[in-house]
Every structure is written in structure tokens, then in C-alpha cells.
């Protein structure tokens, strides 16, 4: 079997190094060319690997290569190995494929930015780190990729590093992600303690062989269900941080500070999908720890509903999409929790298509409006941005899970898996999660089309848009838009081909991208089954019931959006009451700040002033002072006068005599 995985990693890494080291002196065309072709070649390698894998029998589809030895210490041996199997093949296709389209889009979007070379080198680094994350064959190099993704997101979120808000957002993203790294490190320590290895294959073998550690050394205590639950939950801590689930979601909305292509990359191809991937990769561990799966389901369900409610009231175009990502990731975790690991990955793929496109469309709108992101200042853009409008609708229908768009099939597969698990278990939590899934489907329809109607329908509510960029000026010079002072949108134009072509490809994928997962004929489900198991599914009447129920919910949501925002111009009143509560994101950011950040800094300051400066520093000075004072005092005794010494001798002798008189 063909295995080009080293090249899939190596090419983006090479692109990062070349552009990063020499990009400053390169022309923009060369930079864009190097960065895009690195990812394109990596994508072609992934495609070649994929088809080569399809040509193999199911038993031979897994291939592991060891590239070099990283470290050995005692019984610990860690190699840098790359695993090519069905799961990593799907992930690599998404990461490099969608990643490539975002690269091309960035050529247009970032064309005027002076940090062009920095931007493309960071983008390549991002793809490299994500590819490493999904291709590693052991948990340690998963962690290396995991942290590399965190680094790349830090660099890109804080790309415009002179903006205080971007700097703060980058730091927040990094530190919250390090909380996840902490969880992953502890999970790794636990795995080593009980399995004496960090390789996926040997750990999963150990679990399947029921408490037999695949090592000459016995584990310190039997690998019980509790141990596996602890490991699974620690892995999930990492997944929660990376995939922005409750309660570690706070970084994701702020990550909007990065340029819009970065948002597309973070939300679609790289970064947030890593958590979903991790749970799928560790499926044997989670399957053996059913209690942990219930936690995964509850967190996923809570996050999906929580984020959807916030998305309904946000007024920043990118923030709506950010919360929708969090909500959709919640769906993926719910699907995985219900045992449908492949449904989670399936939804990950369709979500990558339509969410990348949504962000690109949003970027096109922002680009056209000269940086404006506030939906309240938009409206009526449909005639100005016709292609963007229709592609926004296509991706919006996919997000709202309307038949036959991509998101419909994958969301339905998840809901079916939850329904089926609810039937099989006595635990009522699965029924609640199913209800949450349906309710969130309605909210998704609502907020998606609230966004579309507000931005594209009605009339324009903003101020005049200044011409921006060389292209816009040139067009105006041609007399095309020299116009009317009455038209504030005179300078608004559809984006260029470099941005439209990748958008069009993703639009096609948003429409047809779910056909590989049609219920009961799910090609992707069958392909992934050897790694992830068969997802629970519904049959007969229940299947149709669930399908129609979720579709109806989404349509109701869209209908409400139409009534409130579509048929007539909506006026945005200042938020009050519940809306205010939602708009302030349940006050969670403020809560964390008040309960965690401020107290830590305060304690640190108090300790500096009292423990460091007063007690320790003062203490050591105090010792010095005491020694000095004592010796000065003692010096005073040595007066040199014989009479004083005589007196001292006399007193001493008297005391000795007195002692013996009292104590005969």
C-alpha cells in the first residue's frame, strides 16, 4: 500500500520554513505560490494514499511507519511513527483539502496586508501541526501536534499584533488550550503507568485483551473500569479545551480577532476538530468507559444548546458563526457519546465544507464593507454580492440541516445514533440529549437565517463604505462606481476570483458532500467501521420519524427567522433582560475573570509583598541585623576596665555559690 504520509507532513513544514525564513524578500506571488503548492501537493498525496487504501482489502488498510527514535527512558520508549489508517486518511483529506482552499482564498483576502509572508508561513505551520496531530501513531506525538496547533492558532489569532484585543485573544486561546494540554499530559501519564506504552495499537490491544498489559512488566494495579474512565475523562478535558466545549469554550469567540481565513481554518479544517478526532481515535478507551461517554454526551449536549442560544442574539457576523461552530461540535460529541464515532467524524467532514464556506462568505461581506462586522449596520447586500449571497444560502441550508444539503445527512445520522442508544439504555439522559438535539436544530435554523436575512435582505443600515484596495480604486476610476452620493454601497463589489473559486468548490461540497453518508448506505460509515465500529442506527418507522422531526424543527426555526427578520426590516433595540443575558454570553467570561484571573493575580501580589519582600527578604536581613546587633552588644562588654571584669567574676562566682546552696 502506498504511504505518503511523511510527505503530507513534510511539505507544509517545508513551506513554513521557506516562507518563514526567506519570505520577507519574496514577492507576494512567490509566497502565495509556495505556500499553496505545498498544501496542494500534500492534498494530492493524501488523495493518492486514500485511493491506494481503497484498493486494499479491509484487513490491510492500516499501515504504520516509524521514522525515528525520539526518546527512551527505562521502560518508556517513544518513536516518531506515522499511522495511516481509515480515520487518519479521512482527516488528512479534510485538513489538506479544505486547508488548500483556504490558502487560495487567503491570496485574495490578505493581498493588501504587509504581513503577507508571515501569514502564509503560519498557515502552513497550522496545516503541518494538524496533519501531525491526526497522523501520529502514539499519544506523545499527538500531543506534539496538539500543542503545535495551539501555537499556530496563537500566532494567527494574534496576527495583527498591535491590536490589544487581538493580543489578548491570542493569549487567551493559548492559555485555555494549555489547560487541555495539561489534561492530555495527565492522560498520557496514566496510560504509561498502566500500559507501559504510548502507542495506540498496543494500548488498544491491551484494552481488548481485558486487563492484560502488553508488556513484560505487570501494571501496578489491574486496569479497572475506573482507570479507563479516568483516562477517558482526562483525554476529554483536552478535547473540551481544543474543541471549545463548556466550560473551556471562552477562547473561541475571541479568536475572531484573527483574519477571517484564519477563522475558516480554525473552525473547519484544523484546530477545533482535533477534539472530535481525539475522542474518535481513542474510541476503544471510551467504549470501555461508558460512564465517561455519558459525560461526553452531557457536555456536548449542553454546549450545543448553550452556544445555539447565544448565537441567536449575537450581532457580530463572525461571532454568530463562532457560536454555531461550538454548537455543531457539541453535536459531534453527542454522536460519539452515543457510540456513533463515525457519525461524529462524518459530521466533522460536512461541517468542514459548509463552515469553511460560511466564514469565507462572511469574509467576503466584511471585505466588501471595508472591515465592518456588525450585522446591524448591514442589510440589502444581496444585489451587490449576488454570488456570495447564494453561496451563503447554500452553506446556511447545509448548517441548518435541510434536505438534501450536506449537513442534513450528518446531523440526522447523529440524531439517529442518539435515538437508538436511548432505546437501548435505561438511562434517561439519552432521551434528554435527543430532545436537546432537536431543540438545537430549531435554534440553528433560526440563527442561521436570522444572519442571512439581516445581512442580505431589507435595506442597508450602515454608513457609506469607503473604497479600499487598489482594485476598488481602479474600478472606480473606470467610471463604474463613481457615483451617486446617495448610494452608500457605491464602492461595494463582489470579491475577486481567487476568493470566489474556492468558495464555489465548497458550495458544491456543501450541497453534495453528505451523499457519502446516506442512511443505511453510508459509504463513510462502512469505510470507518473497522477503526471506529458500527454506529447505532434506526430502522423503519422510527427512522422516518426522527428524520422528519429534525427537518421540521429546522424549518420551524427558519420560519420564525423569516417572520422576524425576513418579511420586514428589523430594528435592533438595545438588549434587555434575557437577550442581554444571552448577549453577554451568560456572563461566563466575567465570572472566570472575577473568580479565577483576578484572585490569582491578587494572591500573587499579596505573596510578593508579604512573603517575598517582608518575610523572606526581610527575614534574611533581620538575621543579619540580629547578628550585627548581638555582636555590637557583646562588644560593649569588653570595656577594658579591670573593675568591670572583676565585677563580672564576682557576680558569676556568687551565682555559682548560690546555685549550690539552693541545690545541695
Amino acid at each position, binding site marked *: 500500500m502506498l504511504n505518503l504520509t511523511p510527505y503530507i507532513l513534510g511539505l507544509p513544514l517545508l513551506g513554513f520554513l521557506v516562507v518563514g525564513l526567506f519570505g520577507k524578500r519574496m514577492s507576494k506571488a512567490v509566497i502565495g505560490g509556495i505556500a499553496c503548492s505545498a498544501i496542494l501537493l500534500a492534498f494530492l498525496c493524501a488523495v493518492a494514499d486514500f485511493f491506494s487504501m481503497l484498493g486494499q482489502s479491509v484487513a490491510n488498510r492500516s499501515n504504520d511507519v516509524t521514522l525515528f527514535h525520539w526518546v*527512551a*527512558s*527505562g521502560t518508556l520508549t517513544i518513536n516518531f511513527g506515522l499511522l495511516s489508517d481509515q480515520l487518519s486518511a479521512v482527516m488528512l483529506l479534510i485538513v489538506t483539502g479544505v486547508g488548500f482552499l483556504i490558502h487560495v482564498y487567503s491570496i485574495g483576502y490578505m493581498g493588501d496586508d504587509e504581513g503577507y509572508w508571515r501569514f502564509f508561513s503560519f498557515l502552513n505551520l497550522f496545516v503541518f501541526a494538524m496533519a501531525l496531530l491526526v497522523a501520529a501513531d502514539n499519544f*506523545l506525538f499527538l500531543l506534539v501536534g496538539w*500543542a503545535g496547533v495551539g501555537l499556530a492558532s496563537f500566532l494567527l489569532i494574534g496576527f495583527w499584533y498591535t491590536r490589544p484585543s487581538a493580543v489578548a485573544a491570542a*493569549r487567551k486561546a493559548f492559555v485555555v488550550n494549555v489547560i487541555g494540554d495539561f489534561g492530555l499530559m495527565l492522560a498520557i501519564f496514566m496510560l504509561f503507568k498502566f500500559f507501559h506504552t504510548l502507542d495506540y495499537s498496543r494500548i488498544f490491544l491491551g484494552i481488548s485483551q481485558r486487563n492484560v498489559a502488553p508488556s513484560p512488566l505487570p501494571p*501496578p494495579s489491574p486496569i479497572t473500569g475506573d482507570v479507563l474512565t479516568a483516562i477517558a475523562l482526562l483525554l476529554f478535558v483536552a478535547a473540551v479545551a481544543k474543541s471549545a466545549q463548556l466550560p473551556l469554550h471562552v477562547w473561541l469567540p475571541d479568536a475572531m480577532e484573527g483574519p477571517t481565513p484564519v477563522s475558516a481554518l480554525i473552525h473547519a479544517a484544523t484546530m477545533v476538530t482535533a477534539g472530535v478526532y481525539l475522542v474518535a481515535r481513542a474510541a476503544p478507551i471510551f467504549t470501555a468507559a461508558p460512564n465517561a461517554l455519558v459525560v461526553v454526551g452531557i457536555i456536548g449536549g449542553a454546549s450545543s444548546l448553550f452556544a445555539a442560544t447565544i448565537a441567536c442574539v449575537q450581532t457580530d457576523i463572525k461571532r454568530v458563526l463562532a457560536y454555531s461552530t461550538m454548537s455543531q461540535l457539541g453535536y459531534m460529541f453527542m454522536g460519539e457519546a452515543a457510540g456513533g464515532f463515525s457519525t461524529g467524524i462524518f459530521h466533522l467532514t460536512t461541517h468542514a465544507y459548509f463552515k469553511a464556506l460560511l466564514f469565507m462568505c462572511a469574509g467576503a461581506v466584511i471585505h466588501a464593507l471595508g472591515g465592518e462586522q456588525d450585522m446591524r449596520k448591514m442589510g440589502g447586500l444581496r444585489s451587490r454580492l449576488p454570488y456570495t449571497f447564494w453561496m451563503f444560502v447554500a452553506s446556511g441550508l447545509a448548517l441548518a440541516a435541510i434536505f438534501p444539503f450536506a449537513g442534513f445527512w450528518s446531523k440526522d445520522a447523529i440524531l439517529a445514533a442518539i435515538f437508538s442508544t436511548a432505546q437501548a439504555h435505561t438511562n434517561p439522559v439519552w432521551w434528554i440529549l435527543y430532545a436537546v438535539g432537536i431543540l438545537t436544530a430549531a435554534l440553528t435554523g433560526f440563527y442561521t437565517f436570522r444572519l442571512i436575512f439581516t445581512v442580505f435582505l431589507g435595506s442597508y443600515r450602515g454608513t457609506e463604505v469607503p473604497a479600499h484596495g487598489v482594485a476598488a480604486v481602479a474600478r472606480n476610476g473606470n467610471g463604474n462606481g463613481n457615483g451617486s452620493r446617495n448610494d452608500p454601497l457605491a464602492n461595494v463589489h463582489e470579491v475577486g476570483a481567487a476568493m470566489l473559486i474556492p468558495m464555489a468548490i465548497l458550495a458544491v461540497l456543501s450541497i453534495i458532500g453528505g451523499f457519502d453518508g446516506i442512511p443505511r448506505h453510508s459509504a463513510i460509515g462502512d469505510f470507518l467501521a473497522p477503526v471506529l465500529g458500527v454506529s447505532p442506527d434506526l430502522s423503519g418507522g422510527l427512522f422516518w420519524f426522527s428524520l422528519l422531526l429534525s427537518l421540521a424543527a429546522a424549518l420551524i426555526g427558519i420560519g420564525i427567522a423569516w417572520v422576524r427578520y425576513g418579511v420586514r426590516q428589523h430594528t435592533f433595540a438595545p438588549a434587555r433582560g434575557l437577550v442581554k443575558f444571552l448577549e453577554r454570553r451568560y456572563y461566563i467570561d466575567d465570572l472566570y475573570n472575577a473568580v479565577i484571573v483576578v484572585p490569582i493575580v491578587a494572591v500573587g501580589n499579596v*505573596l510578593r509583598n508579604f512573603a517575598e519582600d517582608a518575610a523572606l527578604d526581610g527575614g*534574611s536581613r533581620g538575621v543579619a541585623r540580629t547578628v550585627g546587633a548581638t555582636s555590637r552588644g557583646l562588644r560593649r562588654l569588653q570595656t577594658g576596665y579591670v573593675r568591670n571584669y572583676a565585677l563580672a567574676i564576682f557576680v558569676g562566682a556568687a551565682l555559682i555559690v548560690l546555685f549550690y546552696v539552693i541545690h545541695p
Partner: protein
Amino acid sequence: MQFPILSVILFLPLAGAIGAAALPRMAGWGWAMLAALADLALCIWLIVQFAAGVGGMQFTESHPWLPQIGINYALGVDGINLFLLGLNALLTVVALGASLGFVRGSDRSREYLALMLLLSTGMMGVFLATNLFLFYVFWELMLVPAYLLVGMFGGPRRAYAAIKFVLYTAVGSLLMLVGIIALGAVVSSTAHTAYSLDLATLIKNGATALPHGTQIWLFLAFAAAFAIKSGVFPLHSWVPDTYSEAPAPVVVLIAGVMAKTGAYGFIRFNLALFPDATKSLTPLMSILAVVGILYFALQALVARDFKRLLGYVSISHMSVIILGIFALNTQGIEGGVLQMVNHGIIIAALFLIAAFIESRTSSRRLADFGGLATRLPWLATVFLIAALAALGLPGLNSFAGEFLAFLGAFQASYVFGVLGTLVVIPAAWYMLRFFQGVMEGPATGVASDTVMETPTRTGKRTTRKTLRDLSWSEFAVLAPLLALMIVFGVIPGALTNRIERSVQQLLPPITASHTAPARHTASGRVELFGVHGQR
């Protein structure tokens, strides 16, 4: 006779010191640099020649000095000190390279260069000596030049810092001297042998089998010196003062190498000589290490002066090394040794970068800074790499050492392992606070003053210096450190395979120790504070 390579490595810096003291300014620097480079080359040759799978000391040298009282000139190298020699040689070169500007403009360059190289020889001797008295001689020898360097060439509060440094370290050294003499006496009287202070002879004569109570006292006497040197909580108060007042090249040697002599001493003497005491005092050492790790991280988080910040960063990381060592298993100790090397590389780079920033802006108050990256993009880039290495980014060198140390700590005890590992979160926070606070955001303070400044047409001289980016000579000093951050992050196995055998030889006496109150667990129960015999 075999070529005495260890003696040559040991005394080459001394030869450099003598030459530097005799020669005029730049010639002296050239001579010193030549000696340091030759020493580095010899250390690299030694690392290549070192037999990885062999236990015990290699390239040993031993000559009687005062044999009547057990004092010999005895040197040796094994997996534990091998890379520390290389680190010392490398950082001596780096420190001399970073001193070039100072030497050019100073009247006291001879003293300065001679003292730097004398310090280097002293630290070489500390790492190489296998006789306890010889060790003590070099231990004191390294103290004197360090004191003079801080006191003569430091910042405005140099006198205070130097006195504090000397008082702290002298107290520790004296306790250790008492311990050394007592150990020799106790062993010779117990075993009825001649008085000897050779490490190997002491172990052969049953030093490791001394009564538990005696071991405890001796352990504590040695530990006092080592804990102070490596800045173990709460004996660290000298560290922020010394590190922030000493000139940067001196801090490179003090924080980069000298701090390691403490951690090294714990392994070489406490663990090797007092296994029973080690086992029973492990909880104490682990608690101090964990408290230090988190407490220093918190202090780094609120520090207002970035050199003090780096001082706390340094001792927080040193405490990770101590935690790894007292995990008492292969991964922990090996991680500790590996991390000594990695930490030396990183902290040296960070202090140099801090000095580069200070020399351009005449400030080290964090509040004065913001947005320097627009003015100094290359300095910002190297700073970012060093900062990422310092916060333990997987793929860079510090991660490998910290990972092994934490892994070892976790195998030994869940509580210490989890609490120690927790530091990765504040570490990310304080490093980014430092990096972003100086480099990113809108150009304020020192950066904005310079941005606003425009050359006047009259040619009137402005008081502010224009900020210039990293110069080639500055980059040349940092380049080897940056390269090693990446290389040792990608292939840490190249180091651990030479460290491993020596670490594994340390462990059997400790794990076999029965004197300490054993904490056997019922099968299936997970023990919380106990130490597993697992390797």
C-alpha cells in the same frame, strides 16, 4: 598513560584566565575565547567518545594529594555530569561572546575576563571531582569569582545582591563542609578503614549502609548547600536579587550552569551516599519542589521587573528538576538531568535577550513596554522561540526534560505529579505576559518614544537612541542556543541514551532500602504518596 582529557578540560579555562589577566583588552578577550572554544571542542569530543552502555565513571584520573587525610585529586565522568560539562563549556563561550561589547569599553576587562574563566574552571571542577574534598575546593572556588563579578560589575544594587549571594551560599557551603568531614569520620570508624573522601571508596566502605539517623543528618547538611544553590523554596531569596543585578554574561553562567551544581549535587552525593535518608526525606523534598514550582510561577506572573521575572522562571524550572530527581525512578531522574541541560540553554538565551532589550531601552520595567516587535522584528522572533521553549512547548527542548520529570513524578505519586504538571498553565501565562507585554500591542512607552522621534533638519541631537534590531554579533551569540533548543527537542534520545545507564545504577540501593517506613499497598489500591520500585 592515558591522555588526561578531564584535567585538560578542567584547567583550560584557568589557562585562559591567566592569559586574559596578562594580555591587553581585545587580545585578552581573543585568548579567553580561544581557550573557551578549545574547551568546548574537547567536551564535544568527550561526549562522542563516551561509551553509552557502560556504567560507572569513565576517563577517570586519580592522584594522591594528601592521602593521610583521604584527599585525592580524583576526576571522572559518567552519564550524569557528561552533558553538564558540555553545557558549562558552551555557556562559557556564549558568555564571553556576549561580553565583547563590555570588554571593548571597560577599563577593567582583564579582571572581568579572568574572573569569568575562573568561574568556569570552578564549575568544571565541581562537576568533575569524585573526591569530596576536591569537590568542596572547587565549590568554594566557583563562589569567589561569582561574588566578585556580581559585586564589581553588577547593576546599581550590586553590593546588596553580592553580599546576600555570599551569605546564603556560604552558610550552605559550611554546613556541607561539616557534613563532608563527619561523613569521612563516621565511615572510617564504622568500617575500620583509613580515612578517605573518595566517593567510590566511601561507598565501598559502607557509607550507604550507615544508620538511618546518621544518614538523615548528613543528608540535610549536604542538602542545605545544594538547595540554596538551586534556589529551592524557601531558600531562594538571593536568586531574584542576584540575577537581576548581575551583568547578563555573568547570569548566563550563574543561572545557566551554577544553579545546576545544586541539582547535580543532590544526585551525585545525596542519592548515591544516603539511600535510606533519601527515601524517607523524599516527601519533604517533593513538597518543597512542588511548592516552589507553583509559588515561583505565581511570582513570575506578578513580577514587574522582567529580570526578576526571569529569576523566578529560572527557579520554578529548577524546582521541576528537583521534583524529577526525587521521583526516584529512571524517568524522573533522567528527566531531571536532561532538563538541567535544557534549562541552562533556555535561561541563558532568555537572560541575554532581556539584556539586549534593556540595553536598547534602558528599562526593565514591564509597564514601560509595548509594541517593540514592529521596531525589532528579529529580536521578537528569537525571543518568541526562546519563550516557547521555556514554556515547555512540545517539540522544543524543555518539553522532553519536563515531560520525563513529570512522568517520573506521576509514577511515584499522583499528587506531586499532578500538582507539578499543573505549572504548564501558569508557565504559558507568564511567558506570554512577558513576550506580548514587551513585543506586542500598540507601541507605547519606550517603543513609542522612539517611533515619534524624527531626525530634525537642524541635526540637533536627540537624547533617545534609535532602536536597532538584533545585530549579527548578538545573533551569533544566540544562534547556538536556538539551534540546540530545536535539536534537543526533536532528538532528546541522543542525550538520554548516554544518561540512562548511570541513572539506573543509582536506583537499586534506594529502592532496596528497608529502613524507611514502607508504604506497602494492598493489591489493587493506588498509593498516593508512596514510591514504587518501578523503573
